[in-house]
């Protein structure tokens, strides 16, 4: 698991004894700039940029963040996170109001949404229970199999999941006098949950639980000898990651307005892995960096490919090649590239230093 081991000694874990709330807010100035930028973005950006680029990127970023938490801090590369999000999305569609009136129960959002999140967390935790029984690289195989089982189940089941077509016209609710369907409120809703998820992950990673999890990642046997319950910590990590993915799943189904088996098919499941790895598994912000790059590529690569005289359909090829290059040359993703570039810039000034 060299990719994960490469994250040892990163700033996040170096400062890890500082797990008080104030520690979180002593963030890098770039993060503060970013926060201000995201807050004032609706003042000058179009609805398309708000929802289809930044909104979507933050939702995917949250799902990738849940994977980053499991992989980066727990050493468990779980491919089931997108499926947990899909599960939550399906539950929102089933409990809420859609055009499929004979399946959808039409319950109010304050019943349906929490219930959807609870069910998705249970699903994610059970997947964790199954996959923590084996170790290391086996996790990726087992979670991929679970994810595709969910995909095929939703594809073939018509009584609950409505088969191939899924659910259309899932309406974002109107709550507290705000129409969350319109662009700016929905953007702030996504921003709120994404920032909250980020802060909670940073907080948990510095809490005793997060530190124990990182210890288990580095040497499970030693942690067990010290009296930590390794299996329980791992399952708890799955449950926590499932919570983030489930919240993202609710936002995902409101964002698209529909959900179908393809939402959590094998392709999107792999995409989440690509986003998390390309961004960098060492720090939570990597998930969001990966997501914004992925969404930009997804949105603009078609035109860019056509502009340079290539077939616009070769988008997957571009993603595959880009991912291959990142994995080959920067196992720590774009964050790793950035760190290495900075180290190289500083080297002339620090003679013999540990650049």
């Amino acid at each position, binding site marked *: *698991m*060299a*990719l*994960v081991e490469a994250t040892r000694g990163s700033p996040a874990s170096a400062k890890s004894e500082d797990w008080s709330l104030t520690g979180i807010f002593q963030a890098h100035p770039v993060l503060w700039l970013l926060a201000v930028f995201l807050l004032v973005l609706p003042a000058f950006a179009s609805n398309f940029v708000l929802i289809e680029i930044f909104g979507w990127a933050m939702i995917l970023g949250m799902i990738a963040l849940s994977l980053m938490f499991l992989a980066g801090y727990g050493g468990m*590369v779980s491919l089931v996170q997108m499926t947990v999000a899909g599960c939550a999305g399906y539950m929102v569609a089933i409990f809420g109001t859609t055009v499929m009136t004979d399946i959808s129960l039409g319950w109010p959002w304050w019943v349906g949404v929490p219930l959807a999140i609870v069910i998705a967390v249970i699903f994610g935790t059970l997947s964790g229970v*199954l*996959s923590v*029984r*084996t170790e*290391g*690289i*086996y996790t*990726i*195989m*087992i979670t*991929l*199999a*679970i994810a*595709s*089982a969910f995909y*095929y*189940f939703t594809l*073939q*089941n*018509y009584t609950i999941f409505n088969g191939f077509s899924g659910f259309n016209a899932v309406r974002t609710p109107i709550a507290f006098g705000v129409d969350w369907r319109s662009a700016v409120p929905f953007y702030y809703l996504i921003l709120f949950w994404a920032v909250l998820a980020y802060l909670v992950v940073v907080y948990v990673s510095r809490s005793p639980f997060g530190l124990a999890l990182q210890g288990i990642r580095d040497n499970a046997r030693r942690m067990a000898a010290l009296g930590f319950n390794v299996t329980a910590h791992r399952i708890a990590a799955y449950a926590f990651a499932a919570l983030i993915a489930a919240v993202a799943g609710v936002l995902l189904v409101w964002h698209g307005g529909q959900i179908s088996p393809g939402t959590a098919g*094998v392709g999107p499941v*792999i995409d989440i*892995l*690509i986003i998390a*790895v390309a961004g960098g598994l060492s720090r939570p912000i990597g998930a969001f960096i990966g997501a914004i790059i992925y969404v930009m590529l997804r949105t603009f690569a078609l035109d860019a490919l056509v502009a340079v005289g290539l*077939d616009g*359909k*070769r988008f*997957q*090829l571009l*993603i*595959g*090649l880009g*991912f*291959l290059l990142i*994995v*080959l040359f920067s*196992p720590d993703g774009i964050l790793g590239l950035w760190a290495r570039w900075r180290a190289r810039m500083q080297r002339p000034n620090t003679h013999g230093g540990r650049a």
Partner: protein
Amino acid sequence: MNSFIGRHPIWSLIIVILIAILLFLIFAVWPPELEQLLGRKRIFLSALLNGITLGGLYFVVASGFTLIFGLMRNVNLAHGSLYLFGGYFGYEIANWTGSWVFALVATFVIVALLGMVLQFTIFRWMEGQDLRQTLVTIALSLILADLMLWRWGGDFYQVPMPTWLGGPVEIPLVTAMRSSGEYVYLQFPLVRLVILLGAVVIGVLMWLALNRTKVGMLVRAGVDDRDMLSATGVRVQLLFLLVFAFGAGLAGFTGVVGGTFQSLQQGEDIKILLASLVVVIVGGMGSITGAAVGAVLIGLADQFGTVYMPTYAVVLTFVIMVVVLALRPQGLLRGH
């Protein structure tokens, strides 16, 4: 065997009874009540034979996957892409030369070479970094899938079958009795029988190669302890190259076979990859015998599921996987 009976008398009894029931279902003429319960015997028998044939196909693909994993700890998620590429390539060769057998051989060689190139240029440099290798195979599968979509599009392809393989044969298994007292025998496509036979032959050859030759001995030693093997002076890189080539070649080879009796299209790569994953998880990772048991189990579950509960056929295979993982996380046939 005797010790098993001694240790688990109840399980042994249950297994004996199950085998007896199975033999009865296969060989007896079904009484009308049973036909009412399970449908026509012909359907049951076809599902059984189709399941075993499909299991044979899965076995050949999955054994390459499990060998590569067992020796190099490389979860080759591009295995399905190698299968699909082999299928397309075999289709081209078979159409070009008109010889199915030549297409089989040529595909095996070409895909094995492709595997060698991958191992030599990429995986050799990241030995011991399992996650990174797996990520590279994911990237490769995306690239290969898109290149194949570019070249062959989204259409269905079927590798032309040689005439000597066409048509059904009669198998001496009774499906029903006519009112005149005459037995009706099962008709089964010859090509499927040949595939089944081929899988058995490949399995036996592979077992012999692993257990009776020097290279096989090295491979088994490498599966158990790679570092110790290389410390004894064996050129493990050469061994890795050979095994990767062989596993990839098998995947391509199966692609041609699968393209002959099923069909080739986009998405088939993921299906085969998942089948290999489930087979290997159920059977036990790195174990050839485990792959055989898992493959037959999954093939049967797939076919019986399709016949008796069509909406949940795919799910049934995953249920088997979940049950195995819950009871024996290391797989059915693996020590620990």
